[in-house]
């Protein structure tokens, strides 16, 4: 009895803390204060996570390349982000003389604001959601779509050909991959019957024989998750889809002309977008804050959410350490000729899954459809030498 109570307290510790802090204020201020407190907590938490991730990314990438990575500032180089932060804060803020100063200033601000807005609807633990919107997923995608405009503003206002090219690439890429991103999430919405992210997590927080009902453990969920992962990598401009800032041809893409704190904001925006979109993927396919086994539910829900989030970040870093950058035409062909059709087939599979009722038949039918589509499309693509192994004309 006492143990359940303790684990319950641990689970809800942030909620209890918030209620305790707010209780000092007069009653009329309490609702506003609790919202402000949550917002401040989210911003501080993810900014801190951003700082930690930068150093872990550098160290992880180094290990994948058999190097050591940053280890000079503080123990094991853990204070490296502080040094980086001081550097970017003290740097001169340069605005090109021909740049459009107002738009140039607004772009990073808009990017960071829209990126942080996405966290408003993400459930980070049991009862830990800022606003439980009925159309939460739609809100998330609406905010995600607005970041494209910030990227365009940054590229256009810099009056630099590299910035503009990078921005155009980024916007084209983000629009192209937004379609599979939305379609892979639509499958989840179809099964759950709700756009509310808390409802989606609750639907997955059930156990059969100690195993969770996460959507990734279903055929359509697994295919959807793979498509979602590909689309998010492109959406956050991460390697191997980091063409918008391909340093070998575009200097730094749309933030070429940004320095100092504004550049740090872009950097922050990129990482926070990665966290938020990983958090959404966790919520949609990996059961959000639910525990992976029924006997592990005593561990607080927010620990599960953040460990899944960091695992996704590790996969992002892992992919960055492995895969080379794609070419623009490969990127577009991949989106429109492979990922999008696969997402449509996946929608079909999800619909069949929904209407075939329980039993083993739906597993067989859905898996067959998806595997056949994957194998067929993959074979066709490789035959056309679009996605197959490369032939080198001059090397070797």
């Amino acid at each position, binding site marked *: 009895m006492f143990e359940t109570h303790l684990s319950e307290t641990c689970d809800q510790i942030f909620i209890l803390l918030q209620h305790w802090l707010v209780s000092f204020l007069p009653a009329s201020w309490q609702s506003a204060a609790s919202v402000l407190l949550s917002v401040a907590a989210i911003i501080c938490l993810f900014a801190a996570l951003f700082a930690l991730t930068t150093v872990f990314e550098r160290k992880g990438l180094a*290990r*994948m*390349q*058999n190097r*050591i990575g940053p280890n000079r500032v503080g123990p094991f180089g853990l204070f490296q982000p502080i040094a980086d932060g001081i550097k970017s804060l003290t740097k001169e803020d340069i605005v090109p003389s021909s740049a459009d100063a107002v738009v140039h200033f607004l772009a990073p601000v808009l990017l960071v604001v829209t990126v942080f807005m996405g966290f408003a609807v993400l459930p980070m633990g049991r009862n830990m959601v800022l606003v439980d919107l009925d159309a939460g997923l739609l809100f998330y995608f609406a905010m995600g779509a607005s970041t494209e405009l910030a990227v365009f503003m940054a590229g256009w206002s810099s009056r630099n050909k590299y910035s503009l090219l990078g921005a155009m690439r980024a916007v084209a890429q983000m629009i192209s991959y937004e379609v599979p991103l939305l379609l892979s999430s639509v499958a989840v919405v179809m099964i759950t019957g709700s756009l509310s992210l808390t409802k989606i997590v609750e639907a997955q927080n059930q156990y059969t024989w100690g195993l969770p009902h996460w959507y990734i453990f279903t055929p359509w969920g697994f295919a959807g998750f793979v498509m979602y992962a590909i689309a998010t990598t492109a959406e956050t401009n991460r390697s191997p889809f980091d063409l918008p800032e391909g340093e070998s041809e575009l200097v730094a893409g749309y933030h070429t002309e940004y320095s100092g704190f504004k550049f740090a904001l872009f950097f922050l925006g990129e990482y926070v977008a990665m966290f938020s979109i990983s958090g959404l993927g966790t919520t949609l396919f990996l059961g959000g804050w639910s525990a992976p086994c029924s006997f592990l539910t005593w561990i607080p829900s927010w620990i599960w959410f953040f460990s899944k989030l960091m695992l996704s970040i590790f996969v992002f870093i892992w992919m960055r*350490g*492995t895969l080379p950058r794609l070419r623009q035409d490969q990127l577009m062909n991949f989106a429109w000729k492979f990922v999008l059709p696969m997402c449509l087939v996946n929608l079909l599979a999800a619909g069949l899954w929904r209407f075939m009722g329980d039993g083993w038949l739906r597993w067989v039918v859905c898996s067959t459809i998806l595997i056949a589509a*994957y*194998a067929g499309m993959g074979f066709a693509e490789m035959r056309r030498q679009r996605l197959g192994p490369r032939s080198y004309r001059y090397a070797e």
Partner: protein
Amino acid sequence: MLGEGILKGMAVTAKNFFLSFVSAERLTTIQYPEQRIAPFEAARVFPFLVFDGADWESGMRCVACQICEKECPPKCIFIEKSTDKKPDFVGKPQFYPARFDIDISVCMSCQICVEVCPFEAIKMDTEFELSTDDRFGGLLLDRKQLAKSNDYYHEIHPTEASAVDARLAAEKVKADAKAKAAVSAATAKTAAIAGEGA
């Protein structure tokens, strides 16, 4: 199968990631200021002036012939000839550089000065930690800073230095023999003159 290569590549990086924590020999990094690798024998950075013996001023091999100054492509060498002479390693009186400056902010480490020097006086150094906070004065090395002993030369380029020493020794032997011959000839001559006179 589509996507097979991606999985293979991911496996390679994952192996690197985990094994780099286990086996230290996988790590290629040298922690530079604390750990160093010995410089290669053929490494060359900027020129220095070789001197023999203990005193750098009297033992300097340079005779201020100014060939290196003329040949230097970026013109980073400044030589001022002395007015008096001092004996070189064979004992022959030679000019010496009253001033010998190399501006290493201009030098491009081409080694042409070393190639053209007939006196084996200028050689390439392996010292590379030359950064200074005074970029005008600090990078203009005078002859005192440039002078390094022959022992130091042996230390950094042992093979090359031995070859140079052997050649110089052979030259010295030849010069000594010539001098001796000249001396004996002179004595013979004087003797003959004396004999004639007698």
